């Protein structure tokens, strides 16, 4: 990662995501939007997939966006961004694009990325468009009222994976979206959260710089109070704990090399520094029904995932 911001005092002041948007109080994705726009700066076109961030920010005739912004539909943000990027390239070559170098950023939720938008994302990555794709992951379809997605963790309650007598929560594990993206051999992909803002903004900068070469990808964990069922003030805490418990590892894929970032790198090196997963689970209503055995199972899966990523980092260092 290129370190553009060394300390939080280096972070940009100008707001390009305006107040007055209609996201819920304590919305994690809204924090992500503020910092994506700040780090990207005004010479940026945003393409947003249908979802919470689109619906809460663009209620006609008011918009929170201070960047040129396009929403087309739920599953095709990557395709629309491909078109914009291609347009800028040709228009620039023909002397018809006056704005100079312009970033193209997709912002899409987990539903719009893991599930319905996966094909368009893969197409965009495979074709090598100079676009930064940002997935804000709140781990369910929140806009339609908390339905499970491919990003919802195992055993979590959602309205389509209720805790019943026969089946208790989601049966499947969370999909490895980073693995899918890395399989496209893009120049750069990384995970981040809204708690680790310096890490996140530097990754945005890095990813944007690498779009010179081709597509880049960021997976940002962005907790959602109503969807995860925790008190609003805990949004940042929830993202921080997700990293500190090893549930959501911070790492980068940079030109074929895999690198764990702090604090994940420290946790992986010294498991004693890892907080118990239970600390994170117990704060969330969506996991309230978990038995000790289920928690132990999830804890083992977290450890296995950390071991897998450590091995990857070692093999591709």
């Amino acid at each position, binding site marked *: 990662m290129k370190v553009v911001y060394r300390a939080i005092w280096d972070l940009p002041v100008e707001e390009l995501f305006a107040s007055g948007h209609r996201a819920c109080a304590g919305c994690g994705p809204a924090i992500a939007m503020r910092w994506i726009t700040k780090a990207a700066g005004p010479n940026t076109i945003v393409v*947003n997939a249908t979802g919470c961030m689109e619906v809460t920010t663009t209620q006609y005739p008011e918009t929170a966006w201070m960047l040129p912004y396009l929403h087309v539909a739920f599953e095709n943000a990557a395709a629309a961004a491909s078109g914009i990027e291609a347009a800028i390239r040709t*228009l620039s070559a023909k002397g018809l694009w006056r704005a100079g170098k312009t970033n193209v950023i997709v912002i899409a939720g987990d539903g719009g990325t893991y599930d319905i938008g996966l094909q368009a994302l893969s*197409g965009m990555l495979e074709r090598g468009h100079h676009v930064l794709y940002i997935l804000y992951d709140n781990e369910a379809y929140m806009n339609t009222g908390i339905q499970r997605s491919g990003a919802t963790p195992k055993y979590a309650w959602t309205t389509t994976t209720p805790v019943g007598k026969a089946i208790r929560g989601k049966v499947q594990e969370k999909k490895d979206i980073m693995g899918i993206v890395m399989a496209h051999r893009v120049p750069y992909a990384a995970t981040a959260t809204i708690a680790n803002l310096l890490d996140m903004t530097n990754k945005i900068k890095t990813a944007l710089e690498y779009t010179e070469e081709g597509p880049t990808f960021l997976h940002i964990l962005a907790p959602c109070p109503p969807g995860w069922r925790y008190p609003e003030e805990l949004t940042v805490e929830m993202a921080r704990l997700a990293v500190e418990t090893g549930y959501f590892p911070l790492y980068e894929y940079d030109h074929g090399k895999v690198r764990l970032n702090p604090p994940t790198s420290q946790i992986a090196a010294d498991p004693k520094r890892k907080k118990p997963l239970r600390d994170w689970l117990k704060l969330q209503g969506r996991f309230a029904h978990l038995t000790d055995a289920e928690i132990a199972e999830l804890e083992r899966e977290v450890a296995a995932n950390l071991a897998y990523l450590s091995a990857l980092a070692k093999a591709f260092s």
Partner: protein
Amino acid sequence: MTVALEARAKAKQTLALTSNYAAAYAAKAADVDVIAVYPITPQTTIVEKISEFVDEGELRAQLIHVESEHSAMSAVVGAAAAGARTFTATSSQGLELMHEVLHIASGLRLPIVMAVPARALSAPISIHGDYSDVMNTRDTGWITLIAASAQEVYDSIIQAYRIAESVLLPVMVAYDGFLMSHTTEAVELNDEEEVRKWLPRRLDRPNLLTPEKPITMGAFAMPDYYYEIKYQVQEALLGSLDKVVEADREYGKAFGRSYGIVQSYRLEDADYIVVAYGGASWGNAREAVDEARRRGIKAGALRLRVWRPYPAEEVAKALAGVKAFAVVDRAIAFGAPAGGPVYIDTVTALRMRGIDTPGLSVIHGIGQRSMFVEDFVKVFEMLKDGERNKTVYMGLKL
């Protein structure tokens, strides 16, 4: 001949082209910036020809090899929003896959142009021609032209850019899958410099994405606003007929060919009129008129060159006062009060004007079932024999 006309005549070139190649040549002449296409029979040869143009350096454009038609339409929506002149083409299942985004293209008022060699829809899967795909796009807010020759395909696509960029609505140019898409005809090509002069760039529209003016496109509208925004599409689409006429007239002045919005054949004293669209139906209809007249029936034919917006005045003018008419549809409006989609519109256009000429809905050429001139002659005979107000499934093995 003026010097200018002479120069133009010299620059003109006549090639033997399929309608698909004619479409590709037209897109090249229009100097499109971004093309996003996905192959499907019978559209594929357009993609191939365009790929050749781009790879040979004859067309300075980005060709996006999208992974689906849904993405093809989405990519041209993005590109058009950023100010690029765009082109795409599809058929059948591809057009169905695009369907969601077709509404968005018109709702965002983007001047996209698309070629559609029309094909039947699954299931059962059929690669052959009919107009089921095009008819399914009826309410998407697209201006839809239906051409009847390769030359007209070429000319209509160039005109389509004029129309789209002045009305700010997307335009589809449809034509017969296979019967036209894969049939070679002589096509006179314009001097590309002249075409580009005729299609000046418009980089001043309000719905442009650029950091110079950060607007929001694709907003979310509550009941207080949604209706008005959609009504604007309706108004623009209905009003576009004048622009279609104007573009066709201006094109005629510049390049010597124009078509009108409906074409008529021997209508002057006709008692019975067959309304048709697309190349094969139109060819059959005209020959059938001649044959029917030899058999003593005062027959005439009318071709719709514009399907959306429906040219109601022109059709009503032609059909008012005749004894009866038939519409030959190459699509089935499943479960509708009459079988043919264009027939339904035609009847509505007449009744809305208080005209009560009786009609007959004829379905033919489904999945490219062979249509013979004699079938069309039979339609005239049925009309003369008093067949009215019903649907005839012609060519069906009953």
